[in-house]
């Protein structure tokens, strides 16, 4: 066992765990943050996607020891009910989810894509999202929602630029 300290959804977090334990199970079973899902355990489905220092990673294959000192964001930290992330807003507008199980991972992959590419093309979306399976078949609505989230993100950036304090 080791004590591993990292930043989780903006807050300092310390956890006692076997260093080899994947981040997925630390989040779900030790910290009771169950929004991040298990789907395959071998980085084939993307249900476990979280952000490590802003990059989308598969938490099912990321050992907790590799997270020490770094920043993790999960779906619980993506937005709040009062201030949804543009991805969540767009997903809500398009009303994307069916069973919903994959959607935490889908949104985390999409948010990471939009952070590095403000206006992704369909081909960019194919590349960034092909690692996230959806067995309910919501892909077409996810694609529409990513384009919509890009618009919402641009509006938010414009609003920030217009605001005298640089904040909305």
């Amino acid at each position: 066992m080791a004590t591993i300290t990292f930043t989780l959804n903006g807050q300092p977090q310390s956890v006692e765990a076997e260093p080899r334990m994947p981040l997925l199970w630390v989040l779900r079973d030790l910290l009771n943050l169950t929004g991040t899902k298990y789907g395959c355990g071998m980085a084939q489905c993307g249900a476990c996607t979280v952000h490590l220092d802003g990059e989308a990673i598969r938490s099912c294959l990321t050992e907790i020891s590799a997270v020490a000192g770094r920043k993790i964001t999960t779906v619980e930290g993506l937005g709040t009910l009062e201030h949804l992330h543009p991805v969540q807003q767009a997903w809500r507008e398009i009303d994307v989810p069916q069973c919903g199980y994959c959607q935490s991972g889908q949104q985390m992959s999409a948010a990471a894509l939009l952070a590095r590419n403000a206006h992704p093309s369909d081909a960019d979306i194919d590349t960034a999202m092909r690692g996230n399976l959806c067995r309910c078949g919501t892909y077409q609505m996810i694609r529409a929602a990513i384009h919509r989230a890009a618009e919402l993100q641009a509006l938010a950036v414009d609003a920030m630029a217009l605001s005298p304090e640089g904040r909305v």
Partner: protein
Amino acid sequence: MNDLTLNRRTFLAASALAGGGFALGYRVALAAEESASSLEFNPFIRIAPNDTITLILHKPENGQGAVTSLCMLLAEELECDWERLTWEFAPVARVYGAPMQGTFGSSGIRSSWKPLREAGAKARLMLQSAAAERWNVDVAQTRTQNGRVLRNGSNDSFSYGELATAAAQLPVPETVTLKTPQQYRLIGKTTPRRDTLAKLTGQARYGIDMRVPDMAFAVLERCPVFGGTVQSFDAARTRAFPGVLDVVQVSRGVAVLASNTWAALEGRKLLDITWDFGPLATLSSARIREMQQALLKTPGAVARSDGDVDAAFAQAAKRVSATYEVPYLAHTTLEPPNATARIDASGAELWSGSQIPGLCQQGAMQVTGLPEERVKVHTLFIGGGFGSRGGGNVYSEAAEIAQVAGRAVNLLYSREDDVQQDRYRPCSLVQLDAALDAQGWPVALRGHVSCQHFQPLRNGIDREAVAGLADNDYAIAAQHFEYSPLELEVPTNFWRSVGASQNVYFMEAFLDEIAAAGNKDPLELRLRLLERAPRLRHALQVAAERAGWNTPLAPGRQRGLACVSCFGSHNAQVVELSVENGRVRVHKVTCAIDCGQVVNPHTVTQQMQGGIVYGLSAALYSEITLENGRVQQSNFHDYDALRMDAMPEIDVIIIPSDDPTPGGVGETATPAIAPAVVNAVAAAIGQRVRRLPVAKNLPAQA
């Protein structure tokens, strides 16, 4: 379907709530021998004095939109404030349909359509009556709007909450007049799903997320050969793994309990088990195919026989024959099977995402020997069902592990467990023959199906094993279908659209072979043969027109079509694809659906897209094979599904319908996609793919 109004032993009743308010629901009329606990009143609606109205949802939510659609049915007739309507999952109770309480057969809306609207209408009338009494006027002098009863010709009104306690004392009306479609405010209008926000913020609780005090995370090592049993095992290394709490043997294997899932999975790898593999240890897919081929050489049970087939074949100007086959399929819901169980002196409690929570209760009763009233089942969100979450072993396994280990467990199937220990859509081998007249029109059709059954046989037939084939709507005068059940201990189960998932592929692909042999256009042939199936015929016309069936295609692209009536709805699909370097790329699917009265157009669109993606995944990629009695696939790397970069554009057209009742949509779009794809592939490469999946059976030169 468990349409409550069809059950003569139930009747609508009202009850006052503790602390004030009103509940309305169905009571089961009891036979004398039944237990007193069945007297429990299980309502559909609770109206609290603070105006909160709660729908007790007797259908689970596995993504099909039951939460929203059923709220719409109630709210339509109750005329309540949509924003103040909340919902909760119902417990398992006979009044909700137990033991078959659940969602299956695309029946959620169809079986709730009448009882929920009636309950809403009767509750509204009782609230109006309570208001009329207070005002001392006739009930005809009142009306309802957005959760209030209003008095005609005045500004007086009461909220439903203010009237609820008084309404609970009134008799339930015997009859009530339901709205006509022209009066609908909600039904038929796109309505945002009520489960969306929870699913976007990580707050939705699925079975896998269940935590109870002192719970262990458990996994179960089952015999890799179906039906095998544990001979002996050594768990010393497992027990030494940090976090492992216990190792117990149960009837289906050896369970590892741990303080976290990873420790349970890692500990399980260290188990040393000697198995008695049992009689299936030499079974292989090749052997199963030989058994099916042998069955096709002997007469089967007659599933349909119309006209003089032998005479028609004897006089035929042309004959067409083909053998088609499909493999076993796993379901691979993205949330793998799981269940949480706790057993103590008071009884058993289970938490699960189950399509049929009633069967979950039955499974736990069998294992524990506890009576129905001492097995409580709580329903959580389901991370995909597709037929896999009906009964299943996970519930009884969880209950048995909890009982043997003496502690609460959340039992999880790893993805490998799920792929290798599923109950599968059976593989099927089919011989098809057609006789054509001198003008090239089919006059006789003969089919013989060999596959395991989905359900027990009746008179030698499993109707599902031939559904979509023997019950086809085509006006071919002479038709004869036989079914030869393959008796084998490989576990089988329903899979989205069940028999139609395979037989519609056989029927619709073979029909294109008939069209080619008779030199007919596939659309022209179907339109002629569907004269007596006007709704399906119309759906086909709509899809073909929208897709531009007779218009030129971009270079390298081809079209194919297929259609079927199933689950009370009518669906036609046109696929546009190309075959490049031996790979099929589906560009577009045009899908026309006539599902009668639409409740929520958004969920109809979702179910069409979802049904197509699920069927397309299987048609292109999926195959479960056996060798030495073991499933050879294990995870998404070798049992893949459609991904974003292969997703076609899907154009859904919902056909306006005069039918005032809804048809099913959950499974309706799955059957037609595979034949539409292979029909387009045949147009592209001139060869028919008679065995799925396409990716593994495309001719080498394509």
